[in-house]
């Protein structure tokens, strides 16, 4: 039975893996990320740079509702730094004793403030296209990191037969190639303090690292826990195999 099943597995997997996908989307180029692989971790410096890019560029259009300032300690900031970062923002709180809403500086426990009151306002300000919340954007796309990197660097002159409306741009990697986000990044736009190159490619890589963390903040714990769990199970399975062999030795 095992032999037949293996043959079947091959028969089935060849068409499935060989022909999956297709369509008019362009597969994004594959990158090696600091966080990929069994031992991959987040590069804290890249996370901080990526956050800077998000803060200075993307945050004017995109919310990140699932994140709070307190989460920023993961990027290597200490509590006082997080407090200082939060303090640069103001949030609406209330109602106070008089029943009025009031503004106050944000605290680490506050969520990232959104750039627009609501989705309608966000879409209205962007010519009808809603800038999606970026908290989970990496998980919400196939090959998330590679794809987002490709989107940010994939703006090209539109081919002659493309019909672009006002506020639309041609992007090689967007499904259908038409995107309603103006190229958000270009060389030299964000001033890095750690000497990393101020290039589009670097910005895109850093912001992807940051967004990946934002969607999957427990990745490092997850992989570490997984390693322990799997080693435990393998050892346990090895022991049980020995026990089973011993018990069955009088049967065979």
């Amino acid at each position, binding site marked *: 039975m095992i032999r*037949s099943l293996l043959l079947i597995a091959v028969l089935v997997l060849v068409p499935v893996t060989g022909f999956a996908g297709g369509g008019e989307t362009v597969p994004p180029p594959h990158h090696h990320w600091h966080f990929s692989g069994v031992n991959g971790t987040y590069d804290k410096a890249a996370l901080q740079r990526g956050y800077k890019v998000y803060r200075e560029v993307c945050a004017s259009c995109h919310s990140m509702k699932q994140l709070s300032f307190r989460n920023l300690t993961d990027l290597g900031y200490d509590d006082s730094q997080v407090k200082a970062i939060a303090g640069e923002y103001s949030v609406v709180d209330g109602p106070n004793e008089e029943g009025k809403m009031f503004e106050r500086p944000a605290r680490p426990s506050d969520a990232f403030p959104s750039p627009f009151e609501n989705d309608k306002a966000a879409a209205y300000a962007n010519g009808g296209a809603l800038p999606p919340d970026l908290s*989970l954007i990496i998980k919400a796309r196939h090959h998330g990191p590679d794809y987002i990197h490709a989107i940010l660097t994939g703006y090209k002159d539109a081919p002659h037969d493309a019909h672009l409306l006002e506020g639309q741009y041609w992007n090689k990697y967007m499904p259908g190639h038409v995107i309603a986000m103006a190229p958000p990044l270009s060389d030299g736009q964000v001033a890095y303090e750690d000497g990393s190159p101020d290039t589009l490619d670097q910005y895109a890589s850093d912001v992807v690292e940051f967004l990946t963390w934002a969607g999957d903040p427990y990745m490092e714990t*997850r992989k570490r826990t997984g390693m322990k769990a799997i080693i435990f199970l393998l050892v346990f399975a090895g022991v049980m195999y020995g026990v089973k062999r011993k018990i069955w030795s009088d049967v065979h």
Partner: protein
Amino acid sequence: MGSGERIEFDNKVVNWIDERLPLFTLMQKEYGVFPTPRNFNYFWNFGAIAMFMLIAMIVTGIFLAMNYTPHVDMAFDSVERIDRDVNWGWMLRDIHMNGASFFFIAVYVHIFRGMYYGSYKKPRELLWILGVVIFLLMMATAFMGYVLPWGQMSYWGATVITNLFSAIPFVGDSIVTLLWGGFAIDNPTLNRFFALHYLMPFVILAVVFLHVWALHICGSNNPSGIEPKGKQDTLPFHPYYTMKDTFGLLVFLVVFCVFVFYAPDYLGHPDNYKEANSLVTPAHIVPEWYFLPFYAILRAITFDIGIPFTDITIISAKLGGVISMFGSIGLLLILPWLDTHPIRSCRYRPKYKFFLLVFLVVFCMLGYVGSQSADAMFFGLPMTLVGILCTTYYYGFFLVIIPWLNNTEKGRDLPKSIHDAVLQAEREKA
């Protein structure tokens, strides 16, 4: 269970309890000395694995429910809170999410084992039927569970599947209204799905109890498909199979953990990380992988069935799809009466074995078809054609091939006993 002879236990407390409620005697009889065929291979491991997964799903599910909010405005965010802010919440959710997939893997293997070794045949028909009932309940449970995170695939999957019921003549629309709790998928739908999703695993547990009870009445089948004839053919369940099952389970869990900890979203769909939005339809609506073969059968019927040369439609394409989908599981229910061949195991039925393995390929192929959009191509063939061909084989296998083999397949000579079968196998190996 009450009467019958009882052996004394050495431990006083155990004995005291056992005199009043013979739990320990029961365990001893059903899992200690229970005579089990000596020639099981690892395919007999998957019942125990499925049992483990069921328990794991219930335990993780209860903890998830403590932190989940079944409201359309809060469900998506509450799942994110579980992932981000609940202690070890990410692990609970990754186990539960991937656990569903691995539960289905175990049960699919378990069902296929039954088909390969003829475990559905007399006297195990009811055992088999209870199994199919479990499978149906699992599908319903998994479907409703997938709606709970209220992502795009949750919402649109629920839309597609609940709409199917509207194809049923006369009562269809009322059923859909009942499922929805209103006239659209909305908060009442989410609430009732949550309540049912919490309930159904316990119903499954009850049916599993009946399933195992039935198993212990007729005893297990085995790879040779012949009944044990005496002591030399069986072993006590403990320690032989308790130890073997534990080993197999651990190996299964290693693979499971690779997914849970290293690729927790691999089996899911990225669209479910977008919050449900009734105004934006996803490009492809696809169910979870374990539904794909049945989804393909559902979509295979793309034509109305009517009276020839008239415009009268008797069965619309939609109803046809629904009937063929439910029918495909119905066939499993009546399999014990379709296959009346006296030989159980494929080992001694080369022809049935051949067609069954083709069936397995076709079933996987259907899964592939189900994952593709309707206008996709497969080696130059339209996907819809591949779908209808595979569906035809699925039905043909049960309704034509199996009955035909009943009358024509002679099969190989059966060994005299399990003991003989084991010796024969060992001789072949040497």
